[in-house]
């Protein structure tokens, strides 16, 4: 049984890696876009497993994007290295802010992360000399000269890393820590868990992932602007994907992102006008009939079937 699973994973990964060899540029670009949202959704879920709901994905995404673009532009740092720098920047900013804001819980944490993302955006917009102000900054060229296959592999590598990190979070003591913190902080601390340490750790790691994705995005499209790079849809869409797929698992956000991403693209081809309407309707319908998300509800059904 277990072996089958590993074989299946290997096959899926192989298919994913070989994807550019048997598809056109368009599908590669679409897949890249879906993988970007997939990683964001998964990183959001990883923090959600501690019970903390962040509304600040776009903030760290944007910080990563700007850090990568500016280090590349001003100091000529290699794009790949600057992507990692973007992640590091997001990591440290999240770490420092986490020291303060991770005392908050629930809705208060959500709002403060939302506010922080907006503050990042306003600061970036107003620092004309460094960031290029509201007009943003244009990079001389896209990463890998815009080669879609290489960009796809880059994003795929980041996605697989994110999935691995998520699995590490699920399979090690971190799983016990996050689950107990989410369920009952009193039990968690009475069982010897340093809640604050774990929250900061998870917050910084997930923000770093978001930063890295933001950096790659900036390099893929070779520009950053405050309105585009910090756009709220980088917060809302991943959340929707994760919730639709199912929370607290690796599988959930992955399935959610694949389903919503594919639907969005299919609809765009079928219905040039009004596809976003159908997209919204699909979200509502899926939620109505699968209130625990796709993975959660399917699992529940299977268990009941047993």
């Amino acid at each position, binding site marked *: 049984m277990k072996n089958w699973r590993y074989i299946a994973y290997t096959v899926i990964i192989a298919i994913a890696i070989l994807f550019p060899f048997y598809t056109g540029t368009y599908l590669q670009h679409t897949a890249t876009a879906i993988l970007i949202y997939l990683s964001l959704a998964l990183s959001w879920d990883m923090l959600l497993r501690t019970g903390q709901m962040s509304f600040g994905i776009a903030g760290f995404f944007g910080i990563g994007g700007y850090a990568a673009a500016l280090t590349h532009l001003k100091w000529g740092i290699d794009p790949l290295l600057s992507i990692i720098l973007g992640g590091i920047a997001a990591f440290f900013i999240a770490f420092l802010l986490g020291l303060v804001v991770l005392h*908050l819980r629930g*809705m208060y944490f959500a709002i*403060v992360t939302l*506010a922080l993302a907006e*503050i990042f955006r*306003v600061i970036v917009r107003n620092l004309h000399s460094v960031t290029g102000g509201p007009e943003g900054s244009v990079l001389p060229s896209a990463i890998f000269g815009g080669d879609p296959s290489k960009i796809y592999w880059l994003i795929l590598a980041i996605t697989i890393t994110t999935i691995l990190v998520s699995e590490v979070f699920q399979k090690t003591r971190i799983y016990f820590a996050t689950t107990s913190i989410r369920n009952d902080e009193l039990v968690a601390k009475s069982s010897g868990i340093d809640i604050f340490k774990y929250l900061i750790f998870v917050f910084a790691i997930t923000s770093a992932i978001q930063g890295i994705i933001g950096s790659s995005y900036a390099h893929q499209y070779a520009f950053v602007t405050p309105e585009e790079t910090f756009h709220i849809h980088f917060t809302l869409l991943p959340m929707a994907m994760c919730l639709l797929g199912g929370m607290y698992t690796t599988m959930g956000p992955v399935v959610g992102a694949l389903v919503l991403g594919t639907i969005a693209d299919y609809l765009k081809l079928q219905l040039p006008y009004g596809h*976003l*309407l159908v997209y919204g309707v699909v*979200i509502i319908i899926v*939620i109505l009939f699968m209130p625990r998300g796709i993975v959660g509800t399917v699992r529940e059904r299977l268990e009941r079937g047993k």
Partner: protein
Amino acid sequence: MNNQRCGSFEYPAPLIYLGLKLLDKLRYKNYQIAITLIIGGVVLALWKPFVLIEGLQVAGLYASIALPMALILGIVGIINLAHGDFMMFGAYFAYWFTVYTGADPLVAIFPVSLGLFLIGMATYRGTIKYMHGAPELIQLLLTFGISIVLQQLANLFWTSQPVSIHVGYASASATIGTFTFGTYGFVYVAAAVILFIGLFHFLRHTRIGQAALATGQNPTGAKLVGINIDRIYLLIFSISIALVGVMSVLFLTRHSIFPHVGGIFTLKSFCLAAMAGLGNLTGILWASLILGLGESFVKSFMGYAGWADIIFFVLIIVVIMVGSYRRRVK
């Protein structure tokens, strides 16, 4: 006897007595706050009177839009991401109504609020009702879906071209000396105050309101004492959406409407509700006042308007952090 005595030779006494009683009522801390506010207000009125007036008007707008959201959040327990989109929809209805009947837009308050009441009901019956027992966050996603649908419907029906209605009284103004200011904006202040008093009265002094309050605080307990919580949720949700409808008409009289206009008000209302604390209606008024005045103050300095947003969000963070710190210390 008493009246006579007060009225005749000890006439300042009742005034002083009233004043003392009022001060007594304000607890020590509130008293400090009140004094600071009054002094701040007077200084502001002398230094930059328009900051005070325009800040107040903006605050009124924020508060009156945020109040219904706080109601849903506090009682039904849903972060309604479609809040502003309901307002957008209401405003389009009002626009439609005005264009077709040629009546004054304010007349549209009645049909629009009724229409939105029904839409709210249908939304609840068709979707949110089935979400009880599901993870709370799923409701967030649901309202996100509703928000997309409303925006896109509006885009299909009315296109993205902004529409606006011009009514003469919306730009009414008054002049004191050399200082000219708009008076119509006070309608938002009035709306906020009326809404607040109405809701307060409804929640405290009517049976349904009390039941709603109880449901908001403890749904399981409310169920045990025989409250039909599904009814309460339906009612509160629909009423809130209807109130949004009322606001949407007032909004239309001064603003352009387009399909995405609601998004920012969802965001701001959500922020205000969080800043005030869960289900705290009075807090909404204070929070709006602080943010409205803060924004206007920053904007009043030439060249600093770009930072006004920061004030909004920094204030929110500060208030929430201070509140959390106080709670922890306690």
